[in-house]
């Protein structure tokens, strides 16, 4: 059962455009993370959001955790070719088992 739905699955935009990626679930997570994965490499953690309604900024990237802790969004302002990659959201169920549930990812391509 896929617990985390990401949309869109693919996104191709021009440099300078803004974009938003969504991560939705019917389940509540104790925290949610966003990773970026480049071809041939492992996912790299960008941010962890823990509190419902929390907003975190990382340069041109803005992450928000939904009030009910079931969904999250990633907004990129003025996208650059260096932002190209696979963006994965992952929900942590909490407790001691460390079980991360990943979404299927959004493949972003930013063209110069």
């Amino acid at each position: 059962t896929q617990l985390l739905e990401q949309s869109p699955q693919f996104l191709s935009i021009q440099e300078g455009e803004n974009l938003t990626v969504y991560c939705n679930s019917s389940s509540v997570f104790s925290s949610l993370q966003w990773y970026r994965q480049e071809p041939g490499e492992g996912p790299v953690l960008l941010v962890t959001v823990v509190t419902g309604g929390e907003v975190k900024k990382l340069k041109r990237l803005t992450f928000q955790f939904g009030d009910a802790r079931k969904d999250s969004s990633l907004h990129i302002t003025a996208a650059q070719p260096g932002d190209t990659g696979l963006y994965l959201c992952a929900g942590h169920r909490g407790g001691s088992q460390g079980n991360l549930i990943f979404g299927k990812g959004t493949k972003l391509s930013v063209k110069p």
Partner: protein
Amino acid sequence: DTAVSQTPKYLVTQMGNDKSIKCEQNLGHDTMYWYKQDSKKFLKIMFSYNNKELIINETVPNRFSPKSPDKAHLNLHINSLELGDSAVYFCASSQGPASTEQFFGPGTRLTVL
């Protein structure tokens, strides 16, 4: 200075063979994981070890056997390889089993012919 390393990076083998993938982390973490990423980029947990003890064992064929000789190493042995085992396998580690931040290795691309 690599935090989580895996060997080999690429593995091409015939159906029916047995192969192993090794993982090492130098972060001093207690918990290590194996994930499988399929051709559609879906990343799914397979196993998790905390301080050499198995704590997560998802529905994985028993042809897959993880081994943790110490808390810095988690190896994955696969018997009787099948075509469907072709995927990228990622090792990851975290400070503890409840820690939300996981650090991933570069992956091992396994191709079964």
